């Protein structure tokens, strides 16, 4: 496939994404016609419609787009860094670290509510990935990505175990944890959206800087070196990008790891083998998935069906179709 066709495809996806955002502004417990939405966006006159669209639905749509973008791109990076199709951002311990931090902050530090523990969750995710990397750091002269995966699995397991044990002792922490784990876009502060956006900018810049090096790294470490890639530096930068993207998104919307697993597989099918293109396609596909999930959840069971649940129900058939298709690409 030539770059022209890919650009056209990207353009088409971008248009669909914009339409989806508009639709998500219209859909809700009080549905608005599309022209009312556009009117509310354009006209600064304070009306009920405008306050619904600007104050409640626009931040939520924005949060969906941003969080999905972070989860999706970190998924692409995690899969190519570890060369493992099972890798999703959670593989580096992000979810486990965030969960444990939530249990500790709610159960033992007396923090209350989502806006209280979200920064603990982010901190937990960051610290955990750092430890995962220190333990699973590739040895000099070896390119064994299995070590990093196993390290993530091992540390994630330890933290999950401790977190579960503590939450079974502290019912209020268990209560908060079960609400966070499921993944939802409801009731998030706008300051969280701003912080998330800031983190994403850093992460996306890092990711695009590393895209080419990741392609050469896929050829094997020796080939990558001879093509002038700094293997160690690339790994650390990619890991930093994964941590920031996945940590911030996960803290903000909960453990919706499936999007980071699902969107890259779909993107790889459309984009071919180049990491740069895969990132670009994922950046559009992942938000589409989460927006659709959130809208459907709002229509089916207003206020009760979380985006994380719907995302899994939407994404899984897609993933299975891709897996059954002839073009399913092994890494």
């Amino acid at each position, binding site marked *: 496939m030539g770059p022209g066709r890919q650009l056209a495809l990207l353009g088409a996806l971008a248009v669909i994404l914009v339409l989806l955002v508009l639709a998500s502004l219209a859909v809700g417990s009080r549905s608005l016609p599309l022209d009312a939405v556009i009117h509310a966006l354009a006209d600064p006159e304070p009306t009920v419609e405008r306050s619904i669209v600007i104050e409640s639905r626009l931040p939520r749509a924005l949060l969906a787009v941003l969080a999905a973008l972070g989860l999706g791109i970190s998924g692409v990076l995690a899969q190519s860094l570890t060369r493992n199709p099972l890798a999703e951002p959670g593989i580096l311990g992000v979810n486990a670290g965030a969960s444990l931090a939530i249990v500790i902050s709610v159960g033992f530090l007396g923090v209350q509510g989502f806006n209280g523990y979200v920064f603990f969750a982010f901190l937990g995710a960051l610290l955990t990935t750092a430890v995962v990397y220190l333990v699973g750091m590739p040895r000099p002269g070896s390119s064994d990505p299995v070590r990093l995966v196993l390290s993530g699995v091992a540390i994630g*397991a330890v933290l999950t175990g401790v977190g579960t044990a503590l939450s079974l002792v502290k019912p209020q922490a268990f209560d908060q944890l079960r609400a966070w784990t499921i993944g939802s876009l409801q009731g998030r502060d706008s300051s969280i959206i701003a912080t998330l956006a800031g983190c994403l900018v850093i992460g996306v810049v890092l990711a695009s800087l590393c895209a080419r090096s990741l392609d050469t790294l896929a050829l094997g470490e020796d080939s990558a070196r001879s093509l002038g890639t700094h293997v160690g530096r690339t790994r650390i930068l990619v890991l930093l990008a994964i941590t920031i993207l996945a940590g911030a998104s996960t803290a903000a919307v909960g453990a919706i790891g499936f999007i980071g697993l699902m969107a890259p597989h779909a993107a790889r099918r459309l984009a071919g083998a180049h990491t740069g293109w895969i990132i670009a396609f994922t950046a559009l596909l992942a938000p589409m998935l989460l927006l659709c999930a959130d809208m459907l959840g709002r229509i089916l069971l207003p206020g009760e069906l979380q985006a994380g649940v719907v995302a*899994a129900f939407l994404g899984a058939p897609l993933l299975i179709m891709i897996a059954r298709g002839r073009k399913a690409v092994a890494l």
Partner: protein
Amino acid sequence: MSLRKTLRTPGSLAILLVLCLLVTVFAISGGEYQMSPGQVLKTLFGQGEGIENMVIWQWRMPRAVAALLFGAALGLSGAVFQSLTRNPLGSPDIIGFSTGAYTGALITLTVLGGGFVATSLGALVGGLLTALLVYLLAWRNGTAGFRLILVGIGISSVLASFNHFMVLRAELDVAMAAAVWGAGTLNGLTWQSVIPAGILVLLVSIALLASSSRLQMLQLGDDLCRALGMRVERTKLLFVVLAVLLVAAVTSLAGPIAFVALVAPQIARRLAGGNKLQLIPTALVGALLLASSDLLAQRLFAPVQLPVGVVTVVFGGVYLIYLLNRRTVRA
């Protein structure tokens, strides 16, 4: 001589065996009714008094035997899935059995309000249906490992978020009871359930050991096996069925005890050295892991009984981290 070198000789598997026995004797000697190891041994060899016979044979023995057998069963099933998918993250979880079993158990616990038998039955039905669904959906002129993994992830994610949803909607105390089952626990096992499950585990393990050369051969790749005259799909199906039987026996009684299946084959391989499939060491490592985890689960916060699954993940995780790091130091 290092432990690793010692273990290379087949006879020294005895070390693992002795450790298993020691842990077991220690486990059945403690609890609310304290006994000395001497008293325990006396009771085991038929010289015990009334109350001691009762405590050992009726109360503590079923649990201790279950820990050993179930641990071995989980380890073996993990080894099968890791070699079938040729992925170190392969475990019975990828075919969705554990998640499906939890779904079945959650439905019986939260909707139907069932007791032990109903929960076991629900788990069994849920797990088997899920495994069947994954296998059928992954079938397309054969089951490539990669496709099996992707389909398994898809189905598991749907069920996992459905499970989160059920846990979130349930009353807090029901949800916490369900979470204990979901973590995996050996609490309250009696001979009535352990004996049939144990016999099944033993028979399947013998079948597995008898056909281990074919499992070893499958690691060479489908094409080579076909060229050597093996009926690849039929053989794979046989191994999947055996591994699922093992997991089913364990999970229906004790819940989805995490991580033993994933980590036991990895630990056994690193202990024994080489890339050869290590079924017997894997079974012993699994047994030791579950038995010692259950000991900790009972004693750590006594009288509060932790679910053993919480300890297996921590224990297995810490050991895996140690092994990963030791390799770094050696290199």
